[in-house]
């Protein structure tokens, strides 16, 4: 069991007038090869939770285990934790600093102690994976387009070859094409590189198609957990906490209420298409 979170609580500004309980006794286990969709409204605690998984925040209470080792114990360094658990922040292109794309992407691996002669190979591998032209590696990252910058930033994390990759709203502010590219990159990492993925989002549509398991947060607690089908059963509850269900799920439910013979558990466009074609054919 690679990641286990036990009884995690976190208080922002502890002991001050503005003190706020951001996480309340959260427990979670993540297996190898899973694709977790972490959903929650703004302020639900999802970003706070993922920042604990690679030791950027220290729990007020509770423990985080990586392969059974407490990440804040002496048996493991935080650097090694951060190499294994990669983290792509929101709007990661605002953290670019390198003079060249190469320098920026090589920053992580270099800090992790990858020898100089392997760096070029690593950087090329990462750029290739995110779908950027190798020819861009000597350009300044600041000359690139928004979508390209985002990909460079993601490549900078992937280049450390983490086993577990956390992405916090990786599609925020991208156009539909950029969004599809980033999501298919994440899906490729999951399937081809066997990376465990934790995708943080408040968009059901993005997450529903890719995740193998959904974790729903509200007010600093995990309120729902399970396969997308199971979680979307609670459509009314999800609406109440301001999340809603994917549009296709709504469409199929509406069709069922109208008396059509459809299976309302589907939630992807492809599956919904199949259901609708089925109705049309039986007519």
């Amino acid at each position, binding site marked *: 069991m690679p990641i286990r979170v036990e009884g995690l609580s976190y208080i922002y*500004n502890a002991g001050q007038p503005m003190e706020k309980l951001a996480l309340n006794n959260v427990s979670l286990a993540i297996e190898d090869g899973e694709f977790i969709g972490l959903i929650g409204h703004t302020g639900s605690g999802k970003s706070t939770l993922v*920042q604990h998984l*690679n030791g*950027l925040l220290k729990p007020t209470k509770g423990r985080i285990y990586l392969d059974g080792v407490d990440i804040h114990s002496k048996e493991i360094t935080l*650097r090694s934790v*951060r*190499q294994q658990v*990669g*983290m792509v*922040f929101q709007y*990661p292109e*605002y*953290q*670019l*600093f390198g003079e060249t794309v190469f320098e920026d992407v090589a*920053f*992580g691996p270099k*800090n*992790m102690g990858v020898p100089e002669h392997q760096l070029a190979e690593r950087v090329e591998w990462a750029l290739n994976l995110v779908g950027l032209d190798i020819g861009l590696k000597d350009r300044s990252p*600041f000359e690139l387009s928004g979508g390209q910058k985002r990909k460079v930033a993601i490549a*900078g*994390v992937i280049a*450390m070859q983490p086993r577990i990759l956390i992405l916090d709203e990786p599609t925020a502010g991208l156009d539909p094409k950029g969004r599809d590219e980033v999501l298919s990159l994440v899906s490729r990492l999951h399937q081809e590189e066997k990376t465990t993925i934790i995708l943080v989002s408040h968009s059901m549509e993005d997450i529903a198609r890719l995740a193998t398991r959904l974790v729903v947060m509200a007010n600093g607690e995990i309120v729902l957990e399970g396969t997308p089908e199971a979680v979307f059963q609670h459509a009314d509850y999800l609406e109440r906490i301001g999340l809603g269900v994917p549009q296709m799920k709504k469409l199929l439910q509406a069709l069922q209420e109208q008396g059509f013979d459809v299976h309302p558990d589907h939630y992807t466009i492809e599956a919904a298409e199949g259901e609708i074609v089925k109705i049309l054919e039986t007519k």
Partner: protein
Amino acid sequence: MAMMRNITIGQYIPGESVIHRLDPRTKIIATFLYIVLLFLVNTFSGYACSALLILLAVALSRLPIKYILRGIRPLAFIIILTLSLHFFMTEGHVIFQVGFLKVTQEGVVRGLMMVSRLVLLVVGTSILTLTTSPILLTDGIESLLKPLKGLGVPAHELAMMMTIALRFIPTLIEETEKIMKAQMARGADFESGNIFQRAKSLIPILIPLFINAFRRADDLAVAMEARGYRGGEGRTRFRVLRFTYKDVVALIFVAVFVVVVSIYF
């Protein structure tokens, strides 16, 4: 990182006291008069009178004493330095001698005097910033500088710059934290190594911070122009500063106090 959250520029403590509700211009002028007083008097009884004025202001402002005293703490080093310089470096009647260091009576007197002046200065001015919100403070400064416009002092522009700078301090702190975390997630280390290595490790924070700050400044300029900002000329205000009878009373009181004390002490 947690430390940065505790920095509150101006350290304004909201409140409803008489002092809080005075016109910011009154408080700025009164503080200025008080500073003049501190430099005019040079007897202990004079300082005692100044302290009395401050105690009155503190009592009226209903500020917790600990906030006032907190302002003195960073001065500890300067106080000790001032004291020892005066104690040992002043010529005069020797009280006692440690090796080649001679402590003179004149030195002790002058040292204590300088320290009282320093402490009173900091405490007095901190009452201004503790009871006046930064926005009101800049409004007050703008209004007071307005008569100097004829001399080419860009009063409105200066005030606008101050307002914007103050407004963006929390934003910059938040952003710094975010960038630091992102680089730490990539294995950056800001704590070990010698001073050169540490300075170099700041590059991955400073470059994005500057680039984002310039980008934000551009956005802000465009947003302000889009909302019709054309500088201070003919601009009306949401908060109009009002000089009331309370301000007149306060100013006359402080002015008379300053004149009387500086004449008699």
